[in-house]
């Protein structure tokens, strides 16, 4: 190998060594061992090749295939795909279920996020000062481990109008008339949101707790000396310090709302009267109920583009200095 690659590699590796030494030790006059010649980059490329090739085969190739499909009338029967002058795309502009699907997805995500974040922060703050933090956190983890489709089925049972306990509770409290929870347009959306809140608020709690542990005590105390009470302290010190954690939590949950529709499919399947037909469920219907795969591909691409944009934002947050303080560990 040439001298240049040699030195850059040592530089980067020693750079890592210095960064990871928490006791502040600095490596000066760093010299590589001469027993083994420095590895060529080729060695590392060989090591990463199998994973990257496999990943390309199962993600990149389908992605290009998706673009191809969105431009054709896809026929699974065998008579071949035919070009259809962007019809899959132009139709989307007039497809009310498509446009409504985006609106409902936005609404659904917004409500999930609102409840989960508010509830998550409150629980996290309470737990942070609680003696029973360990036990309670362990219990709160349980919903996240449950398969979303099972969660959907259990809640479907709880919501049932003739023998569901939650339906009974709400009726007994006088909140609900004789309505069926999942069968009524006015309550169905809230009902599916609640299932998501049940399952995923704990994740927000965990992330916020991790953030709360990193709020600098001295800042809190200094602020108190300046006369701040508990509430002012929360908004002036605690919240700004946990903000990067919250942002990560929100973005992750946002993307998961796009990714998973398991529970929703069991609970309402998009009904009643399409009031919970968020875009991914509509995409499922178009592609795997009606098997209009060309149109499905066009819808899938719009969904993917939005997800990629969200992903870009998320990666930016990951790499921003405020979030990377959390990366360093103890």
């Amino acid at each position, binding site marked *: 190998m040439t001298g240049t690659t040699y030195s850059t590699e040592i530089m980067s*590796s020693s750079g890592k*060594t210095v960064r*990871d030494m928490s006791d502040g030790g600095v490596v000066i006059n760093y010299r590589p*061992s001469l027993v083994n010649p420095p590895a060529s*980059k080729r060695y*590392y490329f060989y*090591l*990463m090749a199998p*994973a990257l090739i*496999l*990943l390309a085969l199962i*993600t990149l190739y*389908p992605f290009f295939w*998706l673009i191809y*499909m969105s431009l054709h009338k896809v026929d*699974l029967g065998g008579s071949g795909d035919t070009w259809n002058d962007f019809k899959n795309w132009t139709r989307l502009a007039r497809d009310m279920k498509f446009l409504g699907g985006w609106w409902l997805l936005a609404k659904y995500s917004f409500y999930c996020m609102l409840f989960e974040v508010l509830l998550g922060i409150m629980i996290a703050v*309470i737990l942070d000062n609680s003696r029973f933090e360990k036990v*309670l956190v*362990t219990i709160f983890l349980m*919903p*996240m*481990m*449950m*398969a*979303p489709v*099972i969660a959907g*089925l*259990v809640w*479907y049972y709880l919501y049932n109008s*003739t*023998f569901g*306990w939650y339906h*009974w509770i709400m009726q*007994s409290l006088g909140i609900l008339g004789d309505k069926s929870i999942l069968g009524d347009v006015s309550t169905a959306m809230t009902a599916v949101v609640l299932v998501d809140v*049940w399952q995923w608020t704990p994740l927000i709690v965990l*992330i916020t707790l*991790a*953030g709360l542990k990193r709020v600098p*005590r001295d800042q809190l*105390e200094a602020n*108190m000396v300046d006369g701040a009470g*508990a509430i002012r302290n929360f908004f002036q010190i605690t919240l700004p310090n946990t903000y990067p954690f919250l942002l990560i939590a929100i973005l992750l949950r946002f*993307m998961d709302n*796009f*990714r998973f*529709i398991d529970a929703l499919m069991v609970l309402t399947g998009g009904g009643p009267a399409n009031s919970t037909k968020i875009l991914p469920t509509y*995409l499922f219907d178009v*592609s795997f109920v009606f098997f209009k795969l060309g149109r*499905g591909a066009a819808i*899938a*691409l719009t969904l*993917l583009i939005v*997800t*990629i944009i*969200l*992903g870009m934002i*998320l*990666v930016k*947050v990951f790499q921003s200095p405020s979030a990377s303080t959390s*990366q360093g560990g103890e």
Partner: protein
Amino acid sequence: MASHEVVQYRSTIRSAINVFTFVFLMVFLIWTVLPFIIMFVSSFKNLLEAFNLPEKGDWASVISVFFDFEPTAIHYRELFTERNFATYFFNSIVSSGGSALISVVLGAMAAYSLSRIDFRGKNHVFFWVISTRMAPVVAVMVPLYTIFRGLDLIGTLPGLILAYTTFNLPFAIWILKGFFDNIPYAIEEAAMVDGHTRLGAFREILPLAAPGIGAFLVLCILFSWNDFLFASIIGSGGAKTLPVATRELVTPTSIQWGKIMAAGVITSVPMTFLGLLIRKYLVTGLTMGAVKE
């Protein structure tokens, strides 16, 4: 803690807040565990008992009505004798375990080398890796279904394993890269000074990474075990997994709640235990390495 000491003089407000937080926490606790309790208890009730509810507004008899039943294990037995749940259990284990193993082995190799070298376009590779992980499952399934159909992979376990690898492999690469970043390069160098080869040095640091690798293997299993969409379309027919089989107990004519609850217990209990086992790495895993506890 200082904050407590300063506020303590306002003791009435303080105790009011204490009562409020206690009640709030209790309500949240009940809200969290109640579906589990109802699922568990209902799985031991017979058809009629599962339908029992007290009169509207009759709060006093809630407990007595809820626990008024003769425990029966018939649902569990029937799932295995009449419904082939043993096969579905096996399918679930093979598909999630297979995919997790492929992802973690290949992912660890890739993550290690990505952590040790720099090259042009590395950031692009990273973004590609993480974006495949974030892609909506339904959207991925549209082209995958068409391709797998052509390859006769629909309804087979290898097909399902490959489908799960679309989200497990990027997860493993991304998260293990962060893990290897925290293992100093100096350890490998020391190993090489001792006469190990490059590959030998990699093997030297593997024990250090082993707990993390094991935990993320478990997480990969959990993600694919809990999957429903891929399994229902790509695994439909020959490779039915537990979530799909449970869903199929709901039919337009009859919904067998006892069986559904029993199947729910069978599906959830192993994952709950596995999840608690890797508790330490859970937050890191679920946040793609962005947050460490």
